[in-house]
């Protein structure tokens, strides 16, 4: 036991002290910071104010209406001009406009018109033209309303009198599916990244021991199984450390941005949503489950990655081709998660979150929808038990392969041979 602790300690310390660990730990929050400030910047500065000259040949548009709309929204400025189209085409740049459009004379208020070109001398995307179109339509709307005799009161009725619909689980009325699916996605993806990222670290670590030929030296002091387990636990602690540091960083950064007033509407919405969820869902349960499925899933997959690392030689490509089926399982889980989110109580979601290979990701995606509303206790229990049984089995299986593989040099074994190793007597 003491020896496993020594191994865990070494695996943990050598990794945490590495430059790449420090860089990636710091870089991630910096990227996050950049994202917040970046989106804030883009949201305020976004889209240079387009100035568009409008030639109205139809006679529907009047200066008052256009100016009123300009006052309400300054992101684009429309100006009614009386130039001839040809002279406008030649001079709009000198006159200070980014582009111009000509309302055709045959415009009928009952029919509208499908396509008017917004003409400019650079290529503009549809998104670029969208604010101009929206503004034009708001003006056009007020023109139509006037023609139809719709006053402010009627207009309000038209715009605000709607029928809203929201999904409600009759077992758990407080569950908010919008925020729940958000949390589910985030939790599922985090587990997905950690499984792939740190799973391959386990594989590389085992390969390092094998190619540097230290494996046999060590297994003359400890059991191969202890060496494998120590490595997996050590690396899982590294993952947890990094994760924990990120949470602290994000918390600090969030508070800084809030204090300096840099947070924007999306951020506020998000925070509002999160706060709402914190009151409506069972936070300790979600955190506990996240920890459980993160570690359970990690042990499940990391031992398989360790087995592959022990079986191959120096060649990274060998490792990649052998680990492909394992990586595929993780990727399938995340693909199934997206499907399961749409129907979190359907058979795909239920069974996907019980079967161990996909349960770490899929169950985590379902839990925020509510326990026991969406996920009955028996499903959660069954899923947890089968994950524990699952990782004990994979660790046992991997340990057998590892024991043989780590001392075996030469050609790359096939999966069939590796399975044979697993069932061979000592």
């Amino acid at each position: 036991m003491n020896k496993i602790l020594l191994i865990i300690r070494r695996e943990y310390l050598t990794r945490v002290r590495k430059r790449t660990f420090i860089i990636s730990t710091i870089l991630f929050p910096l990227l996050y910071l950049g994202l917040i400030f970046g989106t804030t910047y883009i949201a305020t500065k976004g889209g240079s104010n387009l100035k568009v000259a409008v030639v109205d040949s139809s006679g529907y548009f009047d200066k008052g209406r256009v100016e009123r709309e300009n006052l309400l929204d300054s992101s684009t400025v429309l100006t009614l001009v009386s130039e001839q189209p040809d002279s406008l085409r030649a001079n709009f740049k000198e006159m200070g406009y980014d582009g111009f459009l000509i309302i055709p004379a045959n415009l009928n208020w009952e029919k509208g018109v499908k396509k008017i070109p917004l003409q400019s001398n650079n290529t503009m995307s549809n998104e670029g033209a969208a604010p101009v179109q929206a503004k034009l339509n708001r003006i056009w709307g007020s023109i139509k309303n006037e023609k139809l005799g719709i006053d402010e009161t009627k207009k309000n009725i038209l715009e605000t009198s709607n029928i809203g619909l929201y999904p409600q689980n009759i077992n758990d009325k407080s569950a908010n599916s919008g925020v729940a699916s958000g949390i589910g996605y985030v939790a599922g993806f985090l587990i997905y990244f950690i499984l792939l990222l740190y799973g391959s670290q386990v594989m590389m670590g085992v390969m390092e021991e094998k190619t540097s030929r230290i494996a046999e030296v060590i297994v003359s002091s400890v059991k191969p199984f202890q060496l494998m387990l120590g490595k997996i636990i050590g690396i899982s602690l590294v993952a947890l450390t990094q994760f924990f540091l990120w949470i602290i960083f994000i918390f600090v950064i969030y508070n800084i941005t809030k204090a300096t007033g840099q947070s924007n509407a999306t951020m506020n919405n998000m925070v509002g949503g999160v706060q709402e969820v914190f009151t409506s869902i069972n936070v300790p349960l979600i955190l506990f489950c996240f920890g459980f499925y993160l570690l359970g899933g990690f042990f499940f997959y990391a031992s398989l990655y360790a087995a592959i690392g022990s079986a191959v030689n120096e060649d990274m490509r060998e490792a990649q081709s052998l680990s492909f089926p394992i990586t595929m399982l993780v990727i399938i889980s995340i693909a199934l998660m997206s499907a399961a989110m749409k129907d979190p109580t359907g058979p795909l979601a239920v069974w996907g979150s019980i079967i161990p290979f996909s349960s770490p990701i899929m169950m985590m995606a379902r839990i925020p929808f509510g326990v026991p509303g969406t996920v009955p206790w028996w499903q959660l229990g069954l899923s947890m038990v089968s994950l524990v049984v699952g990782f004990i089995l994979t660790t046992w299986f991997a340990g057998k392969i590892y024991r043989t593989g780590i001392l075996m040099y030469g050609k790359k074994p096939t999966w069939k041979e590796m399975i044979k190793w697993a069932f061979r007597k000592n």
Partner: protein
Amino acid sequence: MPILELHHLRKYFATQKAVDDISLSIEKGQIFGLLGPNGAGKTTLIRMITGIFYPDEGEIIFDGKKFDPRNDISRIGYMPEERGLYKKMKIGEQTLYLAQLKGLGRAEATKKIKEWFERLDMQTWWNKKVEDLSKGMQQKLQFVTTVLHEPKLVILDEPFSGLDPVNTNLIKDEIYNLARNGATIIFSTHRMEQVEEICDHIVLVNRGKKILDGTVRQVKQDFKENLFRVNFSQAITAEHLAIHLFEVKQKGDRDVIIKVDPASTNNDVLHYFINKGLGIESFNEILPSLNEIFIRQVEGTPTSRQFQVVNS
């Protein structure tokens, strides 16, 4: 009392009888040579002694008791042929780690490492990384990590490969030193000149079976062919040598190599030459080198093992 006894050890793999009924006994303080061509089963045998493999059959007695890998491996130091160290880890830290895995406490291990580093002139290495060392230096470090915990049984698989003559001598002296201080050394190699120089007792293994067992002296005696080299003070002719006492293997101007007939003694031969009036300058027995014995024993068997069907 023997430190290690193997009784009818067997280990079969899917396609090979890697170790097929080997028994041997190693006395305390001996330097024991485990010889054999590549693929003879030496490594498998050693892996069973170090607790890495379990034997299919047979028994290992370590220091008078049945071998219990869990406790006994801390009293064994093993330097495998496929050896290595963590390349990116600092040397002091790494040596400490390996010593602790052998059950040494931190303080005790640190003290011992310092002593060894001083003795082998490695004090400046502590904060270097293994990748900064030359291959020979790595070998030296590897040797230190193998014997640091003062094992009773030290197993060295090709310990001199990659070492220059100076460091070879250095390690050789340390091996003698360990043996003098009561450790037993198993020395596995196929470099016969080193075996002849270092080992007291040898065992030759081929194709999973023991084919030779004895002291170096004894083995040489067993394989001698009664060959003698005789140097004369004068030229000799063919008539001088026409006698039933011996058979001429090779004749020079003033010297001859003869194979003495088992029915006659050395004195008979000397009498004969003296009676002929020949001046004898020297009369030496030619003992076979271990290398010759090795080749003779192993010759005729396939150099690399064939895959065989194992029914067990």
